[in-house]
């Protein structure tokens, strides 16, 4: 490397990047998106003395590190959760399990990407509602990401949490709301050529305020995670702000967003595109439109799911002030090569798929007055192998 090369590169980059003009600042969209992230962290769905009393009955409470573990029976009234002893040899990548109001729950690491060579590890709750795992925690004694799922779907009043820790951490003590403490043992799970050390538990009311990590062979604390103030504070529910089934990841810098534009086009005088972001806010589809001097973006976030057998289609909003388009986007089975969309005006459109992290997505936007009627999926040989007329309604 010599200084001439460096100088030339500097000049060329300034020419190319410097000539690029950013579009207008989407200040409202940034705030909305930020509020969605923040609101999810603050959202809490269960409160009250009954739930707090029920939390006392939760299994495996600890008085401190090394305390004996036990299972408590569900209480007669209110909600209850239990936590099973971790089984390092459990099949299917399960690292935590138990019951919530008598119904089983389990946390497991699964590959949510398509067939090999793709692999995208995610923590799944009962096979659904995924949270993409970042790289294994580099420091052996550290706590990495901590994630909360405010309400377990189908198990109202109970939440779930998992913690990613370094290889040297042998036990954790989570202090829950009300000061009760829970002893949890991490388990090592291998997926996608990586080894993740994870611990999980269920909780009532409002999650954990502090998680302390300990290592073997020493009584001392190796790492402490304190839940930032306000995250679980009760606040008025804002419709649309909380996507049920989306995890709250506490580690922002290590966020695991994967973004891609999955389809774009021009309809009338409107330039538009639909993008997909897979990460800390769940599975988010955003419709962006630009017409004249007006532009905007609207977004819909859903829980992260594994690849479906057919297509998991979602309605995608576009900014009403700019566009009257209706958007659809979705995850399709890896077998899909292309799709044919039948519209209510009798026309058909061929839809391409795009690979993002080994997951296949498709999308389309249609003008006002037209509806999507049917989607048919084709494989590489051109054979139709699935069709659906179950189209999500717009809002």
């Amino acid at each position, binding site marked *: *490397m010599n200084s*001439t*090369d*460096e100088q*030339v*590169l*500097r*000049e*060329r*980059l*300034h*020419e*190319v*990047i*410097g*000539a*690029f*003009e*950013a*579009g207008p*600042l*989407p*200040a409202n969209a*940034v*705030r909305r*998106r*930020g*509020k*969605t*992230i*923040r609101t999810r*962290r603050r959202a809490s769905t269960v409160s009250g003395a009954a739930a707090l009393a029920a939390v006392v009955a939760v299994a495996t409470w600890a008085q401190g590190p090394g305390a004996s573990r036990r299972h408590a029976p569900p209480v007669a009234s209110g909600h209850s959760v239990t936590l099973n002893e971790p089984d390092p040899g459990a099949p299917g990548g399960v690292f935590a399990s138990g019951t919530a109001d008598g119904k089983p729950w389990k946390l497991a690491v699964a590959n949510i*990407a398509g067939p090999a060579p*793709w692999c*995208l590890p995610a923590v799944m709750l009962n096979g659904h509602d995924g949270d993409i795992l970042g790289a294994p925690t580099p420091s052996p004694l550290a706590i990495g990401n901590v994630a909360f799922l405010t309400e377990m779907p189908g198990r109202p009043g109970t939440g779930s949490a998992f913690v990613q820790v370094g290889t040297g951490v042998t036990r954790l003590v989570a202090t829950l709301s009300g000061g009760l403490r829970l002893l949890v043992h991490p388990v090592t799970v291998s997926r996608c050529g990586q080894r993740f050390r994870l611990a999980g538990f269920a909780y009532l009311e409002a999650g954990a305020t502090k998680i302390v990590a300990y290592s073997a062979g020493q009584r001392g604390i190796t790492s402490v995670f304190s839940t*930032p103030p306000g995250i679980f504070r009760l606040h008025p529910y804002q419709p649309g702000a909380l996507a049920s089934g989306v995890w709250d990841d506490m580690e*922002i*810098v290590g*966020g*695991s*967003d*994967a*973004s*891609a*534009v999955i389809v*774009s086009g021009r309809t009338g005088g409107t330039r538009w*595109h639909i*993008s997909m*972001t*897979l*990460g*800390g806010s769940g599975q988010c589809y*955003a419709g*962006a439109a630009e017409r004249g001097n007006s532009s905007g*973006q609207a977004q819909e976030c859903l829980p992260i799911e594994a690849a479906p057998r057919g297509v998991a289609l979602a309605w995608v909003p576009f900014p009403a002030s700019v566009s009257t388009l209706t958007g659809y986007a979705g995850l399709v089975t890896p077998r899909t090569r292309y799709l044919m969309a039948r519209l209510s005006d009798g026309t058909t459109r061929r839809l391409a798929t*795009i*690979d*993002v*992290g*080994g997951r296949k997505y498709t999308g389309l936007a249609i003008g006002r007055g037209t509806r999507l009627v049917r989607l048919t999926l084709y494989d590489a040989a051109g054979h139709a192998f699935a069709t659906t007329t179950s189209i999500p309604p717009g809002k």
Partner: protein
Amino acid sequence: MDARDQQDFDQFMAGRWPGLVRLAYGLTGDRWLAEDLAQSALASAYAAWWRVSRADDPDAYVRRILINASKRRFRRRRVPESLHELAEFPDTGTADPADRVGDRAALLAALRELPPRQRAIVVLRYWEDLSDAQVAAVLGCSAGTVRSQASRAIAKLRGSTTLLEGNTR
């Protein structure tokens, strides 16, 4: 977030938006993705403003969010990225002769041939003009790694016609 924090964030956002979009453009070569990455980074900063605003270097913090998001996107994305938008939607407000569009696209394409970390180092070092220590802080590596990776990146780019053309211009 109280009114004061809101005001501080709004000022931060307005001041950083063009720079973040350009940084993301250098990393992706794609207008839409650049704006989406910048928006995503600022939204994350908004959500954790109490933490970002107290950071020693909030700019480094937000750059790190953006670069992490970008790296993960490249790691997971297999489809070849298209540079058509450069020709289809030339940048506005800039006198940009048509014969330069392909030249610019070639430089961005050469950048995209680099591994994500080398690409980030090149853009941070030669576009953002950050010091090795600052780049290291953003990427979470040592200054020595920054220097060695920059050297490798330059060696790769030296082989591309883009850099040579720039050298002879």
